[in-house]
């Protein structure tokens, strides 16, 4: 038996150490600081999350690329081939929207039940509980970057050139996406403790959300033009995911107005124009993204406050 004590250094005097305080309610600043102090736990949890997910499958981590690719193929088949939505080069458009959507969808569908699922841990070990939800968002971020790589490879293969001038907007849009996803994940994970229905409900909400976001249809075919006619275009952008997607789509898909691949029935061989993306100048994208980022920072802090309120009774509800 080894004796670890012999190698230990002389113990420092504890009197110099500051007291940590456990009390009924911690301030937001304290909680954010705790969160930051436990970042190593967050990264451990993210790593173990990713490893566990693919541990016992033959293809392993390949699934994180294969699944979205196959989903992409299905959506392409359904919306471009069967339903003929007319968007040329649809895979690029779809891909740009899907990477954003997958990040949001994966995070929320896994984080919603996470505190209930890991209640054994929550009841026994002390750490900021929201880290569990954030770990799921972190794992989704990892898959996001893998998919971005696959997307980049695809663009190279088909020889589609993105608009490099817009690239610098992507980090802003991504950060907004991350904060929005994290905020919702944290709040949903806490609410699920009190209402277990949320685990099922969130799947329906996510399905609805998918079709409310411009992933499989163009800007023109969304409800935005109708709203615009009534001066209510802003309503469409209340869905923060939309703006983030538009930024990604504008960067990678590039063209805002294209000829449809489907001729009109009346005119014979006329290929009408479709307004795939809103034709804004770069500055509009920038202002909107920055504004969105600001809102998302506030939303994230707000989510932290709500979580702080809700976590007090976790013990008696789990």
């Amino acid at each position, binding site marked *: 038996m080894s004796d*670890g004590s012999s190698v230990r250094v002389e*113990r420092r005097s*504890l009197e110099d150490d500051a007291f940590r*305080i456990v009390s009924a309610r911690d301030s937001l600043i304290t909680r954010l600081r705790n969160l930051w102090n436990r970042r190593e736990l967050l990264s451990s949890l993210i790593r173990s999350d990713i*490893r*566990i997910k693919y541990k016992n499958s033959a293809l392993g981590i390949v699934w994180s690329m294969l699944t979205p690719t196959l989903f992409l193929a299905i959506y392409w088949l359904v919306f471009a081939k069967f339903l003929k939505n007319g968007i040329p080069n649809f895979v690029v458009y779809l891909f740009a929207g899907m990477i954003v959507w997958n990040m949001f969808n994966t995070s929320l569908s896994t984080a919603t039940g996470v505190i209930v699922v890991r209640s054994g841990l929550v009841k026994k*070990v002390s750490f900021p509980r929201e880290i569990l939800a954030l770990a799921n968002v972190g794992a989704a971020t990892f898959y996001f970057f893998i998919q971005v790589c696959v997307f980049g490879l695809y663009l190279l293969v088909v020889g589609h050139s993105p608009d490099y001038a817009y690239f610098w907007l992507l980090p802003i849009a991504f950060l907004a996406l991350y904060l929005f996803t994290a905020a919702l994940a944290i709040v949903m994970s806490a609410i699920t403790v009190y209402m277990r229905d949320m685990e099922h409900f969130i799947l329906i909400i996510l399905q609805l959300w998918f079709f409310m976001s411009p992933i499989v249809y163009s800007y023109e075919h969304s409800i935005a033009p109708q709203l615009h006619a009534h001066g209510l275009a802003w309503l469409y952008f209340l869905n923060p995911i939309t703006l983030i997607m538009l930024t990604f789509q504008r960067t990678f898909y590039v063209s805002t107005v294209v000829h449809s691949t489907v001729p009109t029935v009346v005119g014979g061989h006329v290929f009408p124009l479709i307004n795939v993306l809103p034709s804004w100048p770069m500055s509009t994208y920038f202002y909107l993204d920055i504004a969105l980022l600001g809102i998302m920072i506030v939303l994230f802090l707000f989510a932290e406050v709500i979580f702080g309120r809700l976590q007090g009774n976790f013990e008696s509800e789990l």
Partner: protein
Amino acid sequence: MATVIKVEGIAKTFKIHHERHQSLKERMLHPRSGSTEVFDALADINFTVDTNETVGLVGHNGSGKSTLLKCICGVLQPTSGQIHIRGSLAALLELGAGFQPELSGRDNVYLYGAMLGFSKKMVDGIFDSVVDFSEIEQFIDTQVKFYSSGMYVRLAFAVAVNVDPDILVVDEVLAVGDERFQAKCIDRIRTFQDEGRSILFVTHNADQVRAICDRAIVLDGGHMIADGPTHESLRIFREHLMGSAQEHDRSGLLASISIDSVTTPSGAFHVRSGAGMHFDVNITSQSAYSGNFVLEIFTRKGLLVSRSDAKGSPVNLTPGQNVVGVDLPQIPLLDGIYDVNVGIVNPRGNTVIAWREQAASIQVTYDGREGGLVELGASIRQQ
């Protein structure tokens, strides 16, 4: 001496839902129905723990000791009050709660270390001693789901004690593992004590508290009823336990039997080592009762020297005064003062009917040269 844990006015109340409406439908249909009762798990708890102190937290089931421990570890938020903690704290609460069955033992050591708040670098440094201590070297790269429950707990314990915490919180974990591993754990706890760290030890096993702790805090129904030297607190604990048992006793049996005193013919409790001793236990009983007599002898440090068989000495008490004679034909104990506890238990030997803690103290004098607790009189010769 520095204070490492300061508990100030801690209270914790739980809401007990008599009708839980957890699904959305039920919440919509009954927004405010279902009665809720407020339950005070802890009320007004105040104490401090210094460095180099081993404090036992004793109480029977439901006394709030685990709740208090969870508050100290930060797993639970107290309803009011504050707990100040200085230095790093490792808790041995339900070991292995943080393990991911799908991951290997190695990965889990790192993950568990991170959960306890230790960096990867620190875990790197202690990894070998963790593996060594847990004795599962061959299986360290096996997924934890294939571990036996003993291996599981051993690994978790090894991580928790090797991360070098300033404060160690132990919650009834010594019940796990085989006897040899338990001895190893106790040994490690003693090393901790020698290094001047603080230990908070929670159990309802009075023997363990006696063996390990300098001081004990007794909880009952969420209130602190004692805080002092171990034997003093344990006396209060036992007597209180009897007291609350009497309230539940329907037959009135408990109230009817009391141990009044322990006397010797000469009146002195002084004996020479190796000599015999006789004493009488005076018991008053209101009714006839057949049970068993139990005798315990402890050292002043709280080490159990001997406990008589709880089923081996039947006594038939008659209404009125009873005297039970105890003969110790030969006391091989060495120099020191030994405390005697006596009690009456039921015929099956599992329920205490009457008890008297520290009913007498025997002073033993020894003029031989052996050291330790008992004289064995070993004769040693070369062959």
